[in-house]
């Protein structure tokens, strides 16, 4: 054992002047690790800018693949944001018992207004309702053939802002329906519900599309990196022969992937901004016709950063997968 140890020492540090290279001390090994990263990243950058056309092509493919889910996500966020505003207009109409007097109804209206989940209430007298009905509809004249007012007293309840989901408003309505004088309730929120179903459907669709496009980006990058590995086969073999570790040999390709991903996501950011700007003109016109000032809000700083991080991460992952798959196949012969 001792003999073996001595021999191992021999291998590392023979006595003669031809001693094995004293590689480096602990401090300088971190330094040289950082140096290598700097050098490799610079080289990778240079390599890609040396072939501007093919680099731009690869980055553009990645960029376009990233734009589609980004735009869908932006649309979705905008719609959801608008959704919350619209919910404020989901109102509950409570129809009261036919025998309820106007006085009782008024008192009930006031007491419901004090409920925590209620913003305000409006009492609609059945006589006034009939009058309105008569004046607003052409068929209003039929009313005079009725022997008595068929309309009940009604209370219109506006839910508090704290109720954001239709389900919560439904629960409030169910609670109010149990009140003694209330005959039935009507929630005018079907369209809000529909919008919410559509939104949640779109959310899933966007996620799936994003997932597929992310896989596409991985495949594109994987193939690009595979070609790069193929082109540098001899270099990889020589590096392995002179004692290059796997991380060392992988590094240039990982940087390549990161740079492609970075370039692609920057292109995606710019494209998204351009597309939003183009779309906003017709959207604003459309909104104006609805007396709305709605406009698409594009990527804010945070989302831009997220997009770039995501794209770069995807680049790294694509390269890593390719390197893992192909680098081991290259052994020096």
């Amino acid at each position: 054992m001792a003999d073996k140890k001595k021999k191992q020492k021999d291998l590392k540090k023979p006595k003669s002047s031809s001693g094995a290279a004293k590689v480096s001390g602990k401090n300088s090994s971190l330094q040289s690790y950082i140096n290598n990263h700097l050098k490799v990243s610079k080289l990778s950058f240079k390599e890609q800018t040396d072939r501007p056309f093919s680099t731009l092509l690869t980055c553009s493919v990645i960029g376009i693949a990233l734009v589609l889910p980004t735009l869908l996500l932006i649309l979705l966020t905008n719609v959801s944001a608008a959704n919350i505003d619209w919910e404020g207009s989901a109102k509950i109409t409570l129809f009261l018992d036919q025998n309820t007097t106007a006085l009782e109804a008024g008192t009930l209206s006031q007491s419901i207004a004090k409920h925590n989940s209620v913003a305000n209430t409006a009492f609609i007298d059945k006589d006034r309702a009939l009058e309105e009905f008569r004046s607003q509809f052409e068929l209003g004249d039929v009313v005079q053939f009725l022997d008595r007012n068929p309309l009940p007293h009604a209370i219109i309840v506006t839910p508090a802002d704290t109720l954001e989901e239709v389900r919560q408003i439904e629960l409030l309505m169910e609670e109010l329906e149990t009140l003694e004088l209330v005959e039935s309730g009507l929630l005018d929120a079907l369209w809000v519900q529909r919008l919410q179903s559509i939104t949640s459907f779109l959310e899933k669709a966007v996620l799936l599309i994003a997932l597929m496009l992310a896989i596409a980006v991985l495949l594109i990058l994987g193939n690009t990196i595979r070609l790069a590995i193929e082109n540098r086969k001899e270099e990889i073999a020589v590096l392995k022969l002179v004692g290059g570790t796997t991380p060392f040999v992988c590094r240039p390709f990982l940087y390549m992937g990161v740079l492609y991903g970075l370039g692609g996501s920057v292109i995606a950011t710019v494209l998204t901004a351009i597309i939003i700007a183009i779309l906003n003109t017709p959207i604003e016109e459309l909104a104006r016709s609805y007396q709305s000032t709605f406009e698409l809000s594009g990527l804010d700083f945070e989302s831009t950063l997220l997009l770039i991080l995501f794209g770069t991460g995807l680049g790294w992952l694509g390269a890593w997968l390719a390197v893992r798959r192909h680098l081991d196949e290259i052994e020096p012969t």
Partner: protein
Amino acid sequence: MIQFTNVDKRYEDGYEALSNVSLNMNRGEMAFLTGHSGAGKSTLLKLIMLMERVSKGRLVVGGQDLNTIRKRQIPYFRRHIGVVFQNHRLLFDRTVFDNVALPLEVAGSNPRETGKRVRAALDKVGLLSKEKLNPFQLSGGEQQRIGIARAVVNKPPVLLADEPTGNLDPALSEEIMKLFAAFNQVGVTVLIASHDLELISQMDHRVIEINKGRILHSSGKH
């Protein structure tokens, strides 16, 4: 330094490249490995380099049992072995300097140290003035000397060469062999596969003859 004990090397297709090879080389020794092409010279060198693994028997290099070495340890092991190839395997997309610097770079040497060592190695092979050139601008003999400079730049205790003079004329071949002998002079263990018998006989070093995967005899200076 290098110890083969009853080593067999059988490839997957059943071809037996080496059978029952036992061989011992001491530290600081220089030896030639001769034999016809296909006799197993390259295979023997590849086993030492861990480019191939032993099928049977035991191989110990510098106290390291190569049968048990793990894959991730291989790069670190290779840093202690310099190799010279017949086709020198230089990279033509970079300068002479960068080619010679490769073994230092993979080991994480700092730039100043690298510069010093690379120039020392180039100086030893007499090509210091060519450091900024691309290898394809050099002659065959010069390219081979660059290959040698790369093999010795991190001062490995073991130096292997596979037909290093295979593509060179006799005068250049002799020059290359003398270069190897000079490294051996300063303590490096040198093993050279070559079938240039005439040149080998001039060198006065141990000769190991191998045929059909077996060692025929091992003679000369020990």
